């Protein structure tokens, strides 16, 4: 029973890691397909003599979204993985102690 839980946990973690990597790759690929930035004005022959307002910032000036997106998804995966690992570690510790203790109890009983 203990081994099945261990194997189950390991399977869960390995699967999460593989899936996380492939998911991240897929997202990054899709993000990379964003349309290329529009070509700015050519290095003008004449100096600007007027400021022209624009509705929204051109893509180069905006905060890049991809790092934020990848950090967010990566963080979720990382936290869940660390948490599953933490449960596994604690469970193994308790199981080991139980084995120890029950063998000691059995030994004490047989001695009597």
């Amino acid at each position: 029973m203990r081994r099945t839980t261990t194997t189950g946990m390991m399977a869960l973690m390995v699967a999460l890691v593989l899936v996380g990597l492939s998911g991240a790759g897929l997202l990054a690929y899709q993000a990379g397909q964003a349309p290329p930035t529009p070509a700015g004005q050519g290095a003008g022959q004449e100096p600007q003599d007027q400021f022209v307002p624009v509705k929204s910032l051109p893509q180069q000036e905006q905060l890049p979204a991809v790092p934020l997106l990848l950090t967010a998804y990566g963080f979720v995966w990382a936290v869940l993985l660390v948490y599953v690992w933490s449960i596994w570690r604690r469970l193994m510790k308790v199981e080991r102690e139980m084995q120890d203790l029950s063998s000691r109890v059995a030994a004490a009983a047989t001695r009597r």
Partner: protein
Amino acid sequence: MNKGYSLFVLLAVVLFAFAPVLVAETPNEATMGLVQKIFYYHVPSAMVMFMAALICGLASAAYLFRTRPGADRIAAAAAELTVVFGLIVLVTGPLWARKAWGVWWQWDARLTSTLLMWMIFVAYLLVRRFGGPGAEKLSAAMAVFGMANVPFVYISVNIWRTVHPTTAVIPKLPGGMRGPFWFCVLSFTVLFGLLLALRTRLEQRRADLEHLYLLADEE
């Protein structure tokens, strides 16, 4: 029981694996663009956080009023999950906000109340760990108040004018977003169920160990 666990694990993994694939295909949002895709993990995590908080509160109430130790074990597990998923919400949110609102954090009603609710459950874990004997009852009282917070956090965004989107966004999701969103909700819920079962099992084994220690002392 083990076959059930394996199936559960398989289901959780498959669902969670498929989620990024779906999310990659969703349409970009008009004003927020690519960064809005954090929504597909941020909101399901929040829903799971609420679920965990409610379960913790109900189990704690059952523990206080019926003194069932099993209820206390479920409460302890649920509290830890509230903190974990709350952490996810509180980190993915600001990452999204940095681009969408221009700031990492705002002291509006939704963010403040979520942070406070999260802290209540962090305090739960602290009391459990460092409170000494009788700490289970103290933490149970915290959980009851924490559970009372959940509806408050949920409607805070509808009552006060906040920078955070209102709850009306979910029912009005456009078609391309609806499917992947509810799929993510499903996969997060299944994962939550699995983690709750596993964590409760840890508490159960700890209790068994305590029992065994007592038996050993009697020898």
